[in-house]
Every structure is written in C-alpha cells, then in structure tokens.
C-alpha cells in the first residue's frame, strides 16, 4: 500500500507546496481535485500536466488521482488527455457514473485506448461496492478500478469494512480515508486499525489517500503537512480492545 493525500487537506497549497509536503511526510500518492490551488484543470495544456507530473515524481509521488470538479467532466476527451499526460487515473463517484445513459463502458474503453483508466468511488456500502464491481466487470481489460471513500465518523468501519472489501474485491485500487493523519485520535475505536490490518493481510497494493473530515479541520492539516516527524506512537496507552478481526481472512478466494 502507498500512503498519500488529497488536496482537500490543503486546497490552498500550490503544486510546489504539495510536493514539499509529500516529500516531508514520505507520501507516494496524491488526489488532485480540480479547482484547488495546484492549478491543474481539464483545460490544462499537455506541457503543464507533464511538468506537474515531473514535480510530483521528484517528490516521490508515484500515483495520481484526478477528480474533475463536475462529474461529467470525467467523460470528456479533455479528461482522457489530462490523465495520459499526468499518468493519472480519473476518479468519479459511482452515482454520477451510473446516472448517465450508458457512457461508462464507452469512456472506459477510451481511457484504455489512451493508456489510462477510470476509477469509480463508492462509500462504506457493500451493495454500492458490489454494483461498482459488476459495472467494472462488464468492461473488458480491467480498465475500471474501484475506490472506497471510507469515513469512520460517518459509518463505523469496525463492522462494515470486511463486507465492503469482499464486495469490492481485487479491483479496489484506492481507499480515501477521512479523519486520519492529524485527526487520527478522534477516529479511535471506529475500525481504522481493523481496516488497515485487513488491507495488509489481503496484500492490498493500492493507495490510501488521506482526506479531512471537514473544512474546519484544515488548520491542523496545514501544520501536519509541514512536519516530517510523527505525532507519537501511542504505545504507552495501547488498547487491544479497540482492534477486532472477527472474520477470517482468505484472500486466496478473492476474484475480480
């Protein structure tokens, strides 16, 4: 697994500031949301996108997600071109992807032809994850991957993570985790540890993208992104009752 951040943690950071933060904290993935201060948009020139890719790569960033400000923007030639130049996957929320008449398969094929891919985001809902997986399965060549927006404050992950992981299967390539980083202590007992253990035991090779729980928390993220040191390991106050893995792990049975 590769740890990264969303620009939702620092909407006002320029690309250089984001790169510096990734380097400081050893982050290897980033979600670029259109409209934030990094400046990349669906209308960005190819050279600008390539330069952004180089800047991020120099900071150690290996994987990029790009989220258009309007979901329909993912279904456009501009998005395909940007994804290619950025070497990024373009992400959109599942309800938005399914709302269109039938363009998902068409655009998945376009991304594949261009050498990129789409990523469908679902929530902590096994049925929604299963619907995404089924949609992805209907498209050849594994060109659609899945991403899970996991907010332990909105839905306790203790009970739900096993079912969502099972439903998403091996196409899961991104977990957008809210309320971690500088907010982690407030997520205690909400299943984050169990989720991470399950991902590790499955051999999950995707990315973990940290997101804030709300705009009110951005000041503490700004501080966190500017530091390279940890915030304490917490070992003195460890509590084993906070982490439960009731269901057995059997990743060998996992299918796409």
């Amino acid at each position, binding site marked *: *697994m590769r*740890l990264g951040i969303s620009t939702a943690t620092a909407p006002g950071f320029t690309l250089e500031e984001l790169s510096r933060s990734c*380097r*400081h*904290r*050893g982050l290897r993935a980033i979600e670029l949301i259109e409209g934030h201060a990094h400046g990349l948009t669906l209308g960005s020139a190819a050279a600008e996108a390539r330069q952004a890719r180089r800047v991020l790569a120099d900071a150690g960033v290996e994987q990029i997600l790009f989220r258009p400000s309007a979901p329909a923007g993912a279904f456009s030639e501009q998005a395909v071109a940007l994804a290619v130049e950025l070497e990024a996957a373009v992400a959109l929320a599942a309800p938005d992807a399914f709302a269109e008449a039938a363009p998902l398969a068409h655009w998945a094929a376009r991304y594949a032809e261009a050498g990129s891919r789409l990523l469908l985001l679902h929530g902590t809902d096994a049925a929604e994850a299963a619907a995404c997986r089924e949609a992805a399965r209907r498209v050849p060549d594994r060109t659609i991957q899945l991403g899970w927006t996991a907010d332990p404050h909105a839905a306790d992950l203790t009970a739900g993570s096993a079912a969502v992981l099972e439903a998403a299967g091996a196409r899961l390539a991104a977990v957008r*985790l809210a309320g*971690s*980083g500088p907010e*982690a*202590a*407030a*997520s*205690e*007992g909400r299943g*984050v*540890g*169990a989720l*991470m*253990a399950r*991902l*590790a*035991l*499955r*051999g*999950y*090779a995707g990315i*973990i993208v*940290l997101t804030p729980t709300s705009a009110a928390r951005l000041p503490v993220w700004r501080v966190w992104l500017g530091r*390279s*040191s*940890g*915030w*304490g*390991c*917490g*070992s003195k*106050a*460890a*509590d*084993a*009752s*906070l*982490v*439960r*893995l009731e269901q057995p*792990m059997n*990743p*060998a049975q996992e299918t796409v």
Partner: protein
Amino acid sequence: MKDMSQSRELDVRVIPPREKHPTIFATYDALEPGESFVLVNDHDPFPLRYQFEAERPGGFGWDYLESGPVVWRVRISRR
C-alpha cells in the same frame, strides 16, 4: 494459498495512536508460520520490538528494510 508476504504492507501512520500496536499484533497473529508483512512507520519502531520480545518470545523475525529519516520499513515475520 498464494504467497503474498512480498506485498503485505501495514502502514500504521494512519492508525489512531492507541490502536497502532494492537493492530500490528492482530496482523502478526493472523499470519501463518513463514509469512510476513512490512510495517511502515514515521519513526523507528524499536519499542515495538521490545514488546514483541516480551509477548511473542522467539517467534518473530525483525528486519529493517528502510531506516528513516522520513519512513521506517520493517519486515516482521512469523517463524
């Protein structure tokens, strides 16, 4: 079962502080003998090694793959 020891990573930087060590031990306890995972952390987890020595004596392997200054990666294996 396919061998996934090479790809198993547990990045504890995202885990609430009081859940970190319990999560690491839960992951370790779920391994079969001969399997391993790579622990990723933002500081040297040597206190954890002492805890392993106390609570899982003789049964684990501990190999540093990366030692800072930003990220520490340790392969923890079950014998």
